[in-house]
C-alpha cells in the first residue's frame, strides 16, 4: 500500500478523534471524579463501548490473528474463555463495584481496596503493581500500531511514526476532557473497529473463496490441523488464567464499573460489551484462519494481519487499518487515564492528603504525559511476541485477584493478608517470567495465583480483619437487595 495513503489515513482518523474529544468537553463539570470517571454520568451505550474498546485492543487484530495463524482454534478457545469469565465477573462484581463506588465516592479501584481493608498501603501497593504491569501492556498497543503502519506501507513509514502519532492522539483524548473524551472517542472507535473488520471479513470471504460457506469447506479440506485443538493443557491454562481474571484485576476496566449513570446503564454496559466481544472474537480468529490458508509459512505470525491487508484493495485496507489503529488508541488512552488517576489519588494524595480536587487533576495530567513518554520508549525497544507480553501484564496483575474477591465476599479478609499475598505473589510471578522458568511445566501466573491465594487466606486467618469489614459487606448486601441485584428473600448477596 502507498505510504502516503497510510499517513493520510492516520491524519484523517486523528482529526475525527480530536473533534469528538473536543465535543466531549462541553458540559463537563469540575473536580477529580468528573475528570477521571466522567462524573459517574455515562449512559449504557457509551459505557459498554468504552468498556469494549478498552478491553479489545490492537492485540485482537494483530496478536490474536497471529496466534490463530500459528496455532489454530486453540486461540479462539483462549479468547472465548476470557470472554465467558469476564461476563461472569461483570455479573457478580459489576453491581458491587458500582454500589460501593457510589456510596463511598471512590474514583479508583485501589481506593476501594484501601477503604475496605482500612489500610492505605493496600491502595498504594495495588497502584504500584498496576503501574509496573500496565506500562508494558500499554507499550504493546504502541508496538501494534508501529508494526502495522510499518508492515502496511512496505517498510516505507517508520515504525516509530505509528508509535508517536498514536501516543500523541491518545494523549490528547485523555488530557482534553478525561474520561468524557476518552469514552466518547472509545464509543466511536469501538463501532469503527466492529464495522470495518466485519466489512473486511466478508469482502475476503467473497474475494478469495466465493462465499463464507466455501471458506469453511476449504479450511476443513486444506488446513484441518488448525481446526484441531492441539494446545498443551499447561499452555492453554497458563495463557488463559490471567485473562480470565482481566475484568477484576485490570484497573482500566474495573474503574469503568464506577461510570454508569444508573442500574439500567450498568446492565446495558455488560450486555453491549458481551455481544461486541463475541462478534469481534469470531471475526479476529477467522482472519487468522484465512491468513493461514492464504499465506502459509510466515516467519513472524504477528505479520499475518498486515499481510492480509496488503492483499485487499487499498480503500478497504485503509479502513481496516483505521479500525486497528482505533483499537490500539482507545486502549492506550484508557490505560493512561486510569494510571494517571491511580498516581494522583492513590500515590500523591497519600503523600499530600490535603491535595485539592483541582490539584489532583493537574497531577493526573502531568502523569499522563510522563506515562506516554515511558510507553513510547518501551515500544521503541520492541520486546518479543505480542501475545506473550500482553499475557505477562495480566499475569502480574493476577496477584490482586484474591484481595479483590475477598474484599467483597470474605469478612475475615485482612489488610495484612492482602499485603502479604501481593508482596509475595507479585515478585514470584515477575521473577518466573523474567527468568523464563516454568516449574513443572506450569506458567508463572498459575504459581503466582496459587501462592497469592495461599498467603491471602493464611495470613488473613492469623490476623484481625478490619473493624468495619463486617459492616462494609452487610451494607453492600443490603444495597444489592435494595437495587434489585439479588432477590429480596435471600439473606446474602
Amino acid at each position: 500500500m502507498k505510504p502516503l495513503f497510510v499517513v493520510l489515513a492516520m491524519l484523517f482518523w486523528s482529526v475525527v478523534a480530536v473533534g469528538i474529544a473536543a465535543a466531549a468537553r462541553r458540559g463537563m463539570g469540575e473536580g477529580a471524579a468528573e475528570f477521571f470517571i466522567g462524573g459517574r454520568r455515562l449512559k449504557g451505550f457509551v459505557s459498554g463501548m468504552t468498556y469494549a474498546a478498552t478491553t479489545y485492543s490492537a492485540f485482537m487484530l494483530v496478536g490474536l490473528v497471529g496466534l490463530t495463524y500459528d496455532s489454530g482454534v486453540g486461540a479462539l478457545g483462549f479468547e472465548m474463555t476470557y470472554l465467558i469469565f469476564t461476563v461472569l465477573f461483570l455479573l457478580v462484581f459489576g453491581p458491587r463495584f458500582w454500589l460501593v463506588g457510589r456510596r463511598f465516592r471512590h474514583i479508583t479501584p485501589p481506593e476501594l481496596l484501601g477503604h475496605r481493608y482500612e489500610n492505605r498501603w493496600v491502595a498504594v501497593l495495588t497502584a504500584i503493581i498496576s503501574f509496573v504491569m500496565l506500562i508494558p501492556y500499554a507499550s504493546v498497543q504502541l508496538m501494534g500500531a508501529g508494526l502495522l503502519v510499518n508492515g502496511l506501507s512496505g517498510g516505507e513509514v517508520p515504525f516509530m511514526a505509528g508509535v508517536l502519532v498514536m501516543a500523541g492522539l491518545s494523549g490528547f483524548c485523555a488530557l482534553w476532557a478525561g474520561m468524557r473524551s476518552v469514552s466518547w472517542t472509545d464509543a466511536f472507535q469501538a463501532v469503527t473497529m466492529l464495522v470495518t473488520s466485519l466489512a473486511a471479513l466478508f469482502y475476503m470471504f467473497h474475494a478469495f473463496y466465493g462465499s463464507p460457506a466455501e471458506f469453511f469447506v476449504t479450511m476443513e479440506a486444506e488446513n484441518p490441523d488448525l481446526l484441531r485443538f492441539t494446545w498443551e493443557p499447561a499452555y492453554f491454562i497458563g495463557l488463559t488464567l490471567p485473562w480470565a481474571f482481566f475484568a477484576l484485576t485490570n484497573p482500566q476496566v474495573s474503574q469503568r464499573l464506577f461510570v454508569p449513570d444508573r442500574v439500567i446503564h450498568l446492565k446495558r454496559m455488560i450486555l453491549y460489551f458481551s455481544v461486541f466481544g463475541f462478534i469481534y472474537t469470531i471475526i479476529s480468529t477467522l482472519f487468522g484462519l484465512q491468513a493461514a490458508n492464504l499465506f502459509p509459512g510466515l516467519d513472524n505470525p504477528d505479520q499475518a494481519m498486515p499481510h492480509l491487508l496488503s492483499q485487499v484493495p487499498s480503500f478497504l485496507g485503509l479502513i481496516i487499518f483505521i479500525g486497528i489503529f482505533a483499537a490500539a488508541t482507545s486502549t492506550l488512552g484508557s490505560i493512561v487515564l486510569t494510571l494517571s488517576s491511580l498516581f494522583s489519588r492513590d500515590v500523591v494524595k497519600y503523600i499530600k492528603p490535603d491535595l485539592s480536587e483541582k490539584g489532583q487533576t493537574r497531577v493526573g495530567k502531568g502523569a499522563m504525559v510522563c506515562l506516554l513518554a515511558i510507553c513510547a520508549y518501551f515500544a521503541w525497544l520492541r520486546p518479543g511476541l505480542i501475545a506473550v507480553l500482553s499475557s505477562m501484564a495480566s499475569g502480574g496483575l493476577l496477584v490482586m485477584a484474591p484481595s479483590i474477591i475477598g474484599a467483597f465476599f470474605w469478612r475475615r479478609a485482612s489488610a495484612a493478608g492482602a499485603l502479604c499475598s501481593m508482596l509475595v505473589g507479585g515478585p514470584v510471578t515477575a521473577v518466573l517470567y523474567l527468568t523464563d522458568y516454568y516449574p513443572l511445566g506450569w506458567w508463572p501466573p498459575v504459581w503466582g495465583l496459587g501462592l497469592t491465594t495461599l498467603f491471602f487466606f493464611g495470613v488473613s486467618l492469623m490476623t484481625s480483619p478490619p473493624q468495619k469489614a463486617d459492616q462494609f459487606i452487610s451494607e453492600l448486601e443490603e444495597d444489592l437487595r435494595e437495587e434489585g441485584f439479588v432477590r429480596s428473600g435471600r439473606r446474602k448477596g
Partner: protein
Amino acid sequence: MKGSHFLFFGLGLAMVDILVPYIWLADEPYFAASFLFWCLLTLAVIIGAGIRTRKWGKKR
C-alpha cells in the same frame, strides 16, 4: 449470587470449557467441533447474563 455459589458455578464452567474440547473434540478437524463448542458456550453465557440482569434495578 452468594460467594460459594459463584465459586462452584465458576469452577464448573471452567471444567466444561476446558475438558469438553480436550476429551471429546480435540482431534476433530471441523468447524463443528471445538470452534462451534466455544462459540455456543459463550453465547449461552451471554444469554444467561441477559436473563440474570432482567430484574436489576427493580427496587424492593
